C-alpha cells in the first residue's frame, strides 16, 4: 500500500527544538487535569466558541481518518475474524495516549491506550531509544500494555512533529491464533503468563511505516496461524498509516498550535457531555451486583501441581454516581489465582467501559473524556489487579464481562427508576468461542479460533418486551456471527451440521431473554490430528450474572457436549442429523445416535482430539429475563410454543401458569380460565413453599458458621473476606464477629 512504501512526512532533527519527553508530557497532562478537574486544565472551549464550524471540521477530519482506516484496511489484508466479523478497531490518541477519535469496532479498547504509552514514557523509550515518526510498536501484554488478553494485538504508530510525539495511531484486532500451549486465542488451563502465548510488552517492530523483517519470523515461528496473523499485522499497520498520513495533513492545514489546543478541548468537551448524560439519566445512590465463575482445573490440569485445584471466582462491584461522574468499586472481588482468568487494570477497564461508552458517549465525541468521568477501584491483589507480575491473563473476559454486566446493569436499573424505560434491559454478554490446532494429512500444521458466538449473542429482556437473539455484542456496535463457510474454510475438518437458536435457552420472566445459540460441529477426515478446546464467558456452571432483573431469572450458563465415536453415518442414512444441543441430547437419549464417549462440559474442557464423525456441540449467548414470569402475557407463551422458541409445554405450564392444548393443526390454544386458575395455584404455592427471610436467615447463618459448603465456596469467601469492604458487608449481614473467617469444609 502506498502509505507504507512512501517516505514519511516528517523526519527527526529538522530543527534544533527541545521537545518535551513523553514522561514530561504525561506529567503535565496529569498535573493540569488533577489540579483543575478539567482535562489538561481546559476551562473554556475557546476554539469551539470562536469558530464552531472550523472546530467541528477539524474533528470530522480526525474521525473520518479512523473510520476510513477500518473500512479500508480490513479489506486490504485481513483474517476472517477482522474482515468478516469486524473484530478490530482503529483510533488516534494524544501524545499521552488519551483517545481523540475511534473507528467502529472494539470500542472499549480505547480505555487501554494510555497504559502502553505511559509504560513507554515511564521507561524512557523516547529518551533512550528515540521514537521517530512512523515507527511501529507491537503490544499484547496486559500488565505493560493494558491489553485484555494476548489474543488481542495492538499496533501503535507515533506521529512526530519536530521531535515531539503529538499523536499515536493505534490499530487492534483479535488474532486467529496466538501461540500458547493450548492453541487458539484464549489459552485455557494457562497457569501463568508464560503459558499465555505471544505476550509482547510495548516493542518497536518497524520503522518508517514498515515492519522489520524479523517481525514476520516471529509470527511464523511463535504462532500457529502465521498467514492470517501476518495479514492482520499488515491490516493494522495499513490503517495506522492512513491515520498517520491524515493527521500530518490535518496539522499542515490547521497548524500545530491549533491542533494542540483543539485536541485538549475535544476531550474536555466530551467529558462535560458525559457528565451531563450521567446526571440526566442516573439516580444517585449505591447499586450492587455480583457474579460467579467456576474455574475447574482439579484433575484436568495436573502437570502444574500448584494449580491443580478448582476456583470459584467472585466478582462483586458497586456503582455510585457522584458529582464527578460515577465510581465503580470492585472491592470484595476474588484474589488472583493460578488460572487463566486473571485480569489487569487495563483488562478490567476494557470491560467496564463497554457499558459506560454505550450508555454515556452515544451523543458526543468518543474520547478519553469518559475515562475521566468513571472512577475505578480495582484493589491490589484482586483478580482485577494482581499483585503478582506473572499471572496468566489468557482469558480474563470470562469474568470481566460480568463486571461490565454489573456496571451496565446499574445504568439500566437507574434508567428504569428515572422513567427512561426505553433504555432499561437485562445486560448480558454470555459469549462463546472454540479454538484449537491440527495437522492435515499432508503434514501442514495450523491453529485456529472460531469467534462465532463472540460476534453475536442474544440481548436480555427489555423492561417492556422480550430480548432479541443474536443482536448483542457489547464490545462492538455491529453484532455478527460471521459466515459459516468462512469458519469451515478456516478449520478444514470441521463442518456445520447445524447452527441455530437453541429453543428454551434463556432466562424466563414477564419478558424473556433472547434465545442463545447452538451449533453442531462435525469432524470429517481430520487428517493426522485435530484438537479442540473451548474458552467462554459463561462456561462456568453458573448463571451469567447472579441477580435477575425484577423477578426474572438471569441468563443460564453456557455448555458444550463432546460426542466421540458415533454412528453418525447410520443416522445420516435415515436423513437425520442433530442440529443443536437439544436435538443432540434427544437423539442420544432415544438411542438413535449412539456415542462411545459422550460428555457434557459445564466448564472448560481439556483438548479434545476429534476423529472422523465425532461431534462437538456448543451452546452460548443466552440472556436473562425481566419481571415476574407469572405476569407474562399468556398469548406470548402460546406464540413461543407455536414458534418452538419454548419447546416444552410442561416447563412453561409451571413457569408461567399457562394452560393450553394443541388443536388439530398442531397449534396451541390458550385456556384462559384454566390459566387464571393455574396462576392462582402457583402464587399460593409460592407462599406455601417459601419461608420468612428472617427464618431463612437464622438457618443459613448456621450453614455459614459451620462452613457447610463445597471447599471452593469456602475458599471463595475467605478470599473475598480478605478485603475490608466485603468483610464489613458479610459479617454485618450475618451478625458475626468482624474477625470471622470461613473454615474450609
Amino acid at each position, binding site marked *: 500500500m502506498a502509505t507504507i512504501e512512501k517516505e514519511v512526512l516528517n523526519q527527526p532533527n529538522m530543527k534544533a527544538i527541545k521537545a518535551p519527553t513523553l514522561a514530561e508530557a504525561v506529567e503535565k497532562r496529569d498535573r493540569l487535569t488533577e489540579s483543575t478537574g478539567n482535562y489538561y486544565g481546559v476551562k473554556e472551549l475557546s476554539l469551539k466558541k470562536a469558530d464552531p464550524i472550523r472546530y467541528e471540521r477539524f474533528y470530522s477530519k480526525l474521525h473520518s481518518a479512523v473510520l476510513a482506516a477500518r473500512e479500508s484496511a480490513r479489506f486490504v489484508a485481513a483474517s476472517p475474524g477482522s474482515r468478516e466479523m469486524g473484530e478490530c478497531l482503529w483510533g488516534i490518541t494524544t501524545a499521552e495516549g488519551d483517545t481523540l477519535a475511534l473507528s467502529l469496532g472494539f470500542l472499549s479498547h480505547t480505555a487501554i491506550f494510555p497504559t502502553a504509552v505511559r509504560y513507554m514514557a515511564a521507561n524512557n523509550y523516547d529518551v533512550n531509544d528515540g521514537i521517530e515518526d512512523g515507527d511501529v510498536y507491537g503490544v499484547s501484554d496486559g500488565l505493560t500494555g493494558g491489553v485484555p488478553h494476548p489474543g488481542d494485538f495492538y499496533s501503535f504508530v507515533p506521529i512526530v512533529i519536530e521531535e515531539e510525539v503529538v499523536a499515536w495511531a493505534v490499530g487492534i484486532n483479535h488474532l486467529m491464533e496466538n501461540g500458547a500451549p493450548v492453541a487458539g486465542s484464549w489459552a485455557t488451563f494457562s497457569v501463568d503468563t508464560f503459558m499465555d502465548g505471544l505476550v509482547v510488552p510495548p516493542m518497536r517492530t518497524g520503522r518508517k511505516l514498515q515492519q522489520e523483517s524479523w517481525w514476520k519470523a516471529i509470527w511464523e515461528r511463535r504462532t500457529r496461524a502465521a498467514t492470517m496473523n501476518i495479514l492482520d499485522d499488515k491490516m493494522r499497520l495499513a490503517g495506522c498509516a492512513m491515520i498517520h498520513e491524515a493527521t500530518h495533513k490535518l496539522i499542515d492545514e490547521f497548524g500545530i498550535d491549533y491542533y494542540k489546543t483543539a485536541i485538549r478541548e475535544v476531550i474536555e468537551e466530551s467529558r462535560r457531555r458525559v457528565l451531563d448524560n450521567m*446526571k*440526566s439519566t442516573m*439516580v*444517585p*445512590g*449505591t*447499586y*450492587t*451486583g*455480583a457474579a*460467579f465463575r*467456576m474455574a475447574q482445573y482439579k484433575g484436568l490440569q495436573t502437570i502444574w501441581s500448584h494449580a491443580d485445584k478448582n476456583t470459584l471466582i467472585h466478582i462483586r462491584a458497586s456503582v455510585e454516581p457522584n*458529582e464527578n461522574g460515577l465510581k465503580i468499586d470492585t472491592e470484595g472481588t476474588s484474589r488472583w489465582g493460578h488460572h487463566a482468568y486473571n485480569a489487569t487494570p487495563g483488562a478490567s477497564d476494557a470491560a467496564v467501559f463497554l457499558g459506560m461508552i454505550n450508555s454515556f458517549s452515544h*451523543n458526543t465525541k468518543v474520547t478519553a473524556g469518559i475515562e475521566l468521568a468513571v472512577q475505578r477501584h480495582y484493589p491490589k491483589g484482586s483478580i482485577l489487579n494482581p499483585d503478582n507480575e506473572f499471572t496468566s491473563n489468557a482469558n480474563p473476559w470470562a469474568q470481566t464481562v460480568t463486571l461490565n454486566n454489573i456496571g451496565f446493569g446499574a445504568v439500566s436499573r437507574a434508567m*428504569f*427508576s428515572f*422513567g*427512561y*424505560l*426505553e433504555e432499561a434491559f437485562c445486560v448480558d454478554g454470555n459469549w462463546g468461542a472454540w479454538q484449537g490446532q491440527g495437522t492435515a494429512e499432508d503434514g501442514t500444521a495450523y491453529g485456529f479460533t472460531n469467534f462465532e458466538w463472540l460476534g453475536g449473542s442474544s440481548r436480555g429482556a427489555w*423492561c*417492556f*418486551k422480550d430480548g432479541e437473539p443474536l443482536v448483542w455484542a457489547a464490545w462492538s456496535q455491529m453484532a455478527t456471527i460471521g459466515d459459516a463457510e468462512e469458519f469451515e474454510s478456516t478449520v478444514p475438518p470441521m463442518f456445520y451440521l447445524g447452527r441455530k437458536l437453541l429453543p*428454551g*435457552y434463556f432466562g424466563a420472566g414477564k419478558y424473556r431473554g433472547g434465545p442463545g445459540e447452538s451449533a453442531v460441529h462435525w469432524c470429517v477426515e481430520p487428517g493426522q490430528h485435530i484438537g479442540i478446546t473451548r474458552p467462554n464467558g459463561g462456561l462456568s*456452571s*453458573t*448463571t451469567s450474572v*447472579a441477580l435477575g432483573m*425484577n*423477578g*426474572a*431469572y438471569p441468563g*443460564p*450458563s453456557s*455448555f458444550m457436549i463432546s460426542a466421540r465415536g458415533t454412528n453418525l453415518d447410520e443416522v445420516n442414512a435415515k436423513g437425520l442429523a442433530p442440529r443443536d444441543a437439544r436435538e443432540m*441430547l434427544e437423539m442420544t437419549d432415544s438411542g438413535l445416535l449412539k456415542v462411545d464417549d459422550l460428555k457434557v462440559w459445564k466448564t472448560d474442557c481439556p483438548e479434545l482430539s476429534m476423529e472422523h464423525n465425532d461431534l462437538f456441540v456448543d451452546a452460548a449467548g443466552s440472556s436473562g429475563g*425481566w*419481571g*415476574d414470569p*407469572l405476569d407474562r402475557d399468556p398469548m406470548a407463551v402460546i406464540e413461543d410454543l407455536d414458534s418452538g422458541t419454548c419447546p416444552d409445554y410442561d416447563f412453561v405450564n*409451571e*413457569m408461567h401458569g399457562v394452560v393450553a392444548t394443541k388443536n388439530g393443526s398442531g397449534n396451541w390454544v390458550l385456556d384462559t380460565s384454566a390459566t387464571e386458575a393455574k396462576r392462582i395455584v402457583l*402464587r*399460593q404455592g*409460592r407462599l406455601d413453599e*417459601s*419461608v420468612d*427471610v*428472617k427464618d431463612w*436467615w437464622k438457618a443459613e447463618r448456621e*450453614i455459614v458458621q459451620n462452613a457447610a*459448603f*463445597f471447599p471452593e*465456596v469456602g475458599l*471463595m469467601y475467605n478470599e473475598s473476606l480478605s478485603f475490608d469492604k466485603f468483610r464489613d*458487608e458479610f459479617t*454485618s*449481614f450475618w*451478625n458475626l464477629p468482624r474477625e470471622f473467617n470461613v473454615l474450609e469444609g
Partner: protein
Amino acid sequence: MSNDISISKGIIEQLIDGKIDDDNLERLLKLPKKDSSRFFNYIEVLQGRVKWKDKILLRLSDKLYIVSQAAGKRITKCECGHEFGDYRSNWKLQSKVRVRKTAEEMKAVYDPKPAVPEAGWQEIREYFCPSCATQHAVEVVPPGYPIVMEMLPDLDKFYSDYLGKPLADAASDWYQDKTSGTTSNWG
C-alpha cells in the same frame, strides 16, 4: 429548535404496558438528549395506577416503590399495598424466600438440562411479596452469600441536585444502609 423535548404521558403508558410500537421506540432511543420532564410525568402516571395514596418517590422495580408516608416515613411498598418497612433496610429481608438447592429443584426454572446451575456451587433464591406472592427478585448465588441490596437510592440528592425539587423532609442522614440494623436484631 429547543434541546429539551417533552414525551407524552401516553407514550410513557405504552412503555409501562409493553405496548409501544417500534417507530416510537426508535425515536425515543435516538433522542440526542433525554427529555428532562420524564421523571415527574412517569411518577404521575404511576401514581394514577396504584390503589393507595402514599406519594411515590421512586419506582424500584416493576411492582416495588419507595413511597413517602406521614411523619417523615419513607418505606418500600408493593403495588398490592404490602409494606416492606424503611426503604434503607433491604426490602428482601421482609419478604418470603424459596430456595432451590438441588439440581432437580433448579431444573424447574432452567432448560435445557446442561444449562442448569451446578448444585452446591449455586442456589436459586426467589423473593416473594408475602401478600400478593409477586416474585420481586431472583438471586443465583453460592450458599451463604449475603442477600444483595441491588439499589439504595440517595433520594435527597436525586430530588435536590438532579431534579431541582428538594423533598419536604430532606435531611442529611437519610442516605444510609440500615440492613445490618435489621439482621443484628435477629440473632
